[in-house]
């Protein structure tokens, strides 16, 4: 299988300067790989550093040590050292991220948020609209909500907008932070089907899935994060 993602000796801690410089170690020696068409789950209790690992891979958090290699077409990029402009390009073409909580641009409609994400990934205007509508429909977001900004939506509705946005650009790597949290059984099944479909199409997926049934259904294997405890 083609490798897409390789972490080698990654470490992260937070220094809290406003708390007298207290050190908060998160993880150390994080090393694993994810291949195309593979779905890998990060396992371990809350606070073990699962979300921090995803954020380092997306470049949202900095890594203190180690290497985070992502494949972008024919090129390998080390996120831990990449220039900001390279990271922005990497996010468009190589890696998508569904965060745990939706953080959206205020006043922009749900549909436009998803369209914009598809456009970022290089889709033309018509294709982007088509893809966004298709995703929102498949995720069962009532059509009357499409033209509204998600700020006032329920947790489950926001989460579905978030998932649609993360899937819209169709990058070959996906990071998923609890994509099925706060969803009812029917919506959960739809998200699971979408993930399975992407994996089958060759997307490398790294995710956090607290729901054991979901994890067993979609993950090929689990990387236990407690072994990286700092």
């Amino acid at each position, binding site marked *: 299988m083609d490798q897409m993602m390789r972490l080698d000796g990654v470490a992260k801690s937070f220094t809290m300067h406003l708390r007298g410089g207290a050190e908060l170690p998160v993880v150390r020696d994080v090393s694993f790989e994810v291949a195309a068409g593979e779905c890998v789950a990060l396992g371990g209790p809350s606070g073990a550093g699962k979300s921090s690992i995803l954020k380092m891979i997306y470049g*949202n958090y900095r890594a203190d040590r180690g290497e985070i290699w992502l494949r972008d077409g024919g090129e390998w990029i080390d996120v831990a050292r990449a220039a*900001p402009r390279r990271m922005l390009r990497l996010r468009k073409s190589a890696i998508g991220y569904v965060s745990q909580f939706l953080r959206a641009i205020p006043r922009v409609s749900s549909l436009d948020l998803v369209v914009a994400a598809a456009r970022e990934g290089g889709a033309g205007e018509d294709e982007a609209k088509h893809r966004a509508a298709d995703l929102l429909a498949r995720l069962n977001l009532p059509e009357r909500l499409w033209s509204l900004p998600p700020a006032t939506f329920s947790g489950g509705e926001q989460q579905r907008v978030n998932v649609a946005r993360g899937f819209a650009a169709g990058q070959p790597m996906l990071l998923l932070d609890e994509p099925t949290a706060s969803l009812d059984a029917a919506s959960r099944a739809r998200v699971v089907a979408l993930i399975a479909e992407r994996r089958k199409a060759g997307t490398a997926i790294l995710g956090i899935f607290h729901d054991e049934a979901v994890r067993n259904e979609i993950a090929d294997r689990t990387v236990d994060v407690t072994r990286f405890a700092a």
Partner: protein
Amino acid sequence: MSETEMPLLTAEGLTRLYGPRIGCIDVALEIFPGEVLAVVGESGSGKSTLLSMLSTQLAPTRGTVTYRSRDGGMRDLFSLSEAERRFLFRTDWGFVHQDARMGLRMGVSAGGNVGERLMAVGWRHFGNIRAEAVDWLGRVEIGADRIDDRPAAFSGGMRQRLQIAKNMVTRPRLVFMDEPTGGLDVSVQARLLDLIRGLVADYGLAAIIVTHDLAVARLLSHRIMVMREGRVIETGLTDQVLDDPREPYTQLLVSSVLQG
């Protein structure tokens, strides 16, 4: 290298001293086409001094600023003649001041303010100038019926939108903004931010935005520079610097924002 892979503007070692006092010291930056850079910090951090130097309104004590002109050549901005610099300002650049009165002629009609800039780049036909002015006023949501009113009769938010129209009408490649939403009511601010966001996306503008408001930086910028006491103390991807601030001062700034 393609056009977008070459910086539009580059600053190196940019320093301005006011006698023994530091305005801003040793700043290096690059801005690329289509990129929005936010410069954040509190008052007195040197961010406005930096913006004044980048836009050639203030001469540096030392350091250089180079700009890639439309013909592709890199020009040292402080070796340009006054006439060349004025030409850049009228054609390639925009400058949005916090106080719209500094960017507008208050005694001239809204249409005149926008038209003036077109005339400066050689437009002569009155009907075309007026049509273009109406078009741009429309894009910033100022009705055609207000074209003959003076900005003195406009609200703060409307003046700011007029200032933006005046800047955009010559299709600049780079826009400098100094606290563009400062001093406005939040609802007016929101509308203005939506307008700026749309213009940046639609026209592929490069912009350098000075702001003390981290929410504005998060919404508009790709990259961020944090300044304190005249120095750049932290720089990087906007979401990275705001979500994982490293420097004590940046942590203080981020922790001081109310969570919305």
